């Protein structure tokens, strides 16, 4: 056989009929990676629809803090009303993401609290439901940040809030490599699916090999990033961009922050 003489089996089509095999784990893993990647790929909201990231994060944090601290039912219902109005003004996907996060956290809390409720730890159903209700509001408010802001804006917001730049750099690099390694993992799963043409008796070993390759790639990427940073004169400090161009939504967010603090003080000590 000369170096390029194709072997006999390659010159003819195989007569092949695949047997049944349960390998839906590949499709499920692909769907899971696609969800993560599309979340990271989210395009930013059009300008003017959200306030400055720093104000957004501050308003969200203050709302979370006050909901957690309050003992007043009146304030809780006021905060819930305002929060639901804000959520309902978002894109349908962001509304769904935010409410889903809140609902999952609330259900989880109810399940955890149920045994103590049966042992009579709560005087009435109202006090029993208060904690899951607060958890719902907090989780929905927290989920509103990633559902509305893309990562560069969150990073910008953290920078404006004087979070240490080195911390933001680590977060930036983490998000970047979650995305890049996620893409590589997705491609590997695609490759696995394309070559899974029959019965695979070693599914766990195959998935382990995919995970191992990803680990090696991530190690290689971390070394390369470190070397690239050294070559560009990285000395341990990192400065990110900060912009401040006030717009209508910024004034609305500022008014919200002042208003919600005022409402908290007003309702303090009342039921």
């Amino acid at each position, binding site marked *: 056989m000369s170096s*390029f003489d194709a072997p006999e089996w390659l010159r003819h089509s195989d007569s092949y009929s695949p047997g049944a095999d349960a390998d839906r784990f590949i499709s499920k893993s692909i769907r899971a990676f696609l969800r993560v990647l599309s979340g990271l790929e989210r395009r930013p909201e059009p300008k003017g629809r959200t306030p400055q990231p720093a104000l957004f994060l501050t308003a969200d944090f203050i709302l979370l803090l006050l909901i957690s601290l309050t003992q007043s039912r009146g304030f809780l219902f006021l905060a819930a009303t305002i929060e639901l109005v804000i959520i309902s003004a978002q894109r349908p996907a962001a509304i769904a993401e935010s409410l889903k996060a809140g609902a999952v956290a609330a259900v989880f809390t109810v399940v955890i609290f149920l045994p103590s409720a049966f042992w009579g730890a709560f005087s009435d159903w109202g006090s029993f439901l208060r904690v899951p209700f607060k958890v719902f509001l907090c989780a929905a408010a927290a989920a509103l940040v990633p559902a509305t802001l893309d990562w560069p804006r969150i990073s910008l917001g953290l920078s404006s809030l004087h979070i240490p730049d080195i911390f933001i750099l680590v977060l930036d690099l983490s998000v970047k490599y979650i995305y890049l390694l996620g893409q590589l993992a997705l491609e590997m799963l695609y490759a696995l699916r*394309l070559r*899974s*043409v029959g019965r695979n008796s070693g599914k766990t070993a195959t998935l382990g090999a995919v995970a191992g390759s990803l680990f090696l790639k991530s190690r290689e990427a971390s070394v390369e990033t470190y070397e690239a940073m050294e070559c560009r004169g990285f000395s341990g400090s990192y400065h990110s961009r900060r912009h401040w161009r006030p717009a209508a939504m910024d004034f609305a967010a500022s008014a919200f922050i002042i208003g919600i603090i005022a409402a908290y003080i007003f309702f303090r000590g009342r039921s």
Partner: protein
Amino acid sequence: MIELEDISVSYTGLPALTQISLSIQSGEYLALIGSNGSGKSTLLKLVNGLVFPDSGSWKLDGIEISAARLKDQRFAKSFHKRIGFLFQNSDAQLFCGTVYDEIAFGPRQMGLDDAEVDSRVQDLLALLGIKALEGRAPYHLSGGEKRKVALAAVLALNPDILALDEPMNGLDPRTKRFLREFLLSLRESGKTVICATHDFEYIDGVFEKAAVFSADHRIVRSGPYAGIIADRAFLESQNIV
């Protein structure tokens, strides 16, 4: 063999292919030519059942291929057996512990006995000149070696159609010449080859047909490869040379 009709594909709302119609006959060698991001790789992914059209339809031997049809595991497996895909990034395609296992992965799944699997692996190691790599880990190979191992792993399934995504990208001239000669020799095996490429210098005489993608993800010209490559003004207007 392959019929694409008015296919449009988008990713998160951004168009990747726009109203593509294309017909590929059995045994044909088709080059997909276009600037970066014009949709060549997306077309190859579509043909491999990795992405699905927003509108339009495509058929393989008269059978419409859709997400719903590929949910049928038996159909999906025989479909993937018929079409081999060489990824642009070979790292993504190699996941076994040794080169031997990598090439044997497909034939083992097909239920071939050990002797037959070994025969296929040895044939491909010899054909691609990578016999010395047999026991090595794919991860430690050079770019050209990884590409050859990935090609061997794809060929081990003996697909009827080969989809190659920029197979010569990042390879040294000798490996590019090797791949050119290899593709020419494969023609005798009656395979259909669809190849996205930029390396015109190294694929001269390999392809009989070409389809040219524009920056707005449409096929702006298709026909004999030689005629298209000779039209330098047209290629310049499409940002290809």
